[in-house]
């Protein structure tokens, strides 16, 4: 018997497979407990689904693989908060609004440091960031 684990995953899919019920398959065929954190589905442009999966580790792996086979894009979420380094301009506007001091500027190169350990996913920085480099994924 494998360990029961919990994993957050973002599935993105093109319009062709919007109709395929990903979460249903994961529940029925892989015996996973599925919590839908966010769902945005548009028949014309495809969709995005953020799921929290719980269950047997192997089953989770297989379930994710089957979604991938069906044509879905898969991103495993390490954190609830996504920081797009490429988009970030290191302006620092987010820093002083963070209640847990998870954000700071590197003293040497003045680029943003994001300490995910300290982050409580309150969403303030995502709202404040002028270039939308931070998004909350749930």
């Amino acid at each position, binding site marked *: 018997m494998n360990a029961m684990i919990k994993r957050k995953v973002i599935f993105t899919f093109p319009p062709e497979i919007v109709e395929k019920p990903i979460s249903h398959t994961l529940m029925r065929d892989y015996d996973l407990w599925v919590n839908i954190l966010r769902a945005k589905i548009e028949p014309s442009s495809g969709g995005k689904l953020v799921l929290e999966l719980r269950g047997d580790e192997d089953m989770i792996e297989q379930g994710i693989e089957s979604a991938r086979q069906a044509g879905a894009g898969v991103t495993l979420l390490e954190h609830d908060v996504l920081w797009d380094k490429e988009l970030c*301009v*290191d*302006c*620092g*506007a*987010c*820093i*002083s*609004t963070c209640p847990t*001091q998870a954000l*700071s*500027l590197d003293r040497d*190169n*003045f*680029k943003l440091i994001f300490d995910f350990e300290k982050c409580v996913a309150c969403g*303030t920085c995502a*709202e*404040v960031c*002028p*270039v*939308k480099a931070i998004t909350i994924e749930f």
Partner: protein
Amino acid sequence: MDTITSKLRTYEEINDRIAKGEAVVVTAEEVINLVEDEGARRAAREVDVVTTGTFSPMCSSGVFLNFGHADPPIRMQKIWLNDVPAHGGLAAVDTYLGATNLSETAPDYGGAHVIEDLVRGREVTLKAVSGGTDCYPRKEVTTDITLLSINEAVMFNPRNCYQNYNAAVNTTKKTIRTYMGTLLPDMGNVSFATSGQLSPLFNDPTFRSIGMGTRIFLCGAQGHIAWHGTQHRPSVVERDGKTIIGGATLSVVGDLKKMSADFLRAAVFPGYGVSMFVGIGIPIPILDEEMLRATAVTDDELYTQIIDYSYPHRQRPALGTVSYGELRSGTVTLDGKEIRTSPLSSYAKAREIAQTLKKEIEESQFLLQRPAWTLPREGVNNHLE
């Protein structure tokens, strides 16, 4: 005997050295260490050019565009780019698109986003309507354009590159949303917006090399200073025993087709609206020792005032005077309270701009241009009554 204003070199001599790849160029940060190590006198004899940089939200920015004519032609009177209205009061297919104009359909999208999309090579939907005239019979057009498909795209920003700017704080009990970012209640944070010791107009505070025609780095392209900026009000005030200089502004112009999204970015300030990060670098020629001494200024010697942005009138109260050294350290102390700070301009980008400009000059790709006239040392200060 040489004085600090004895001429060391001319623009022509500097450009000769740049053309030969021999110019000695340092950034406005590097010059600080150089002066510490060997003194201003020696450094001034070595260094030809000091480069500066800033990357800040600058609302008073925009682009002139000429679309070319449709067939049959139209005299565009109302114009939208990706549903953002642009100015229809110029000739048939000319327009000016301001960075802060908001989309009529999409939230958090405005003129600056259209400009960034164009620079990134993306298609933008142009829609225009007209009453129709004998020579321009068409009444409507909708088509996709790109930066390559249109005739001209010229950035022209009436006010950029503030010499100095207030730091902002909020003394009320609720969060306020401003162009200085989100300000937390009870002086919960302070925001500030210049690159201090790297900032162009702090490094030539009397504008000896800054004026109409000066060649500058503008969002990755080579642009020029067009005029002094609107609300150009150079000032030197003494407060709390500290000297605060500031108030000078620039109007700048450059070819959007040569710009890069690395140095130009649309910005959204929630509850306030859209602005645009504009990257500007100005090379300062070291004509004499006095000019070099000015470029060696440090964040600890540059001051600004902390202003209460929650006060709803024009004359907002100043709560204190702080140095950029303090602001950049991450916290300032005000009324005995330690407050965390947020820069709104990117020091990392400012540094990247100063370094990029340095490299371009070293590699003979960027020559200096002597201005036709230098910025006025005084400004006007009128108000709406």
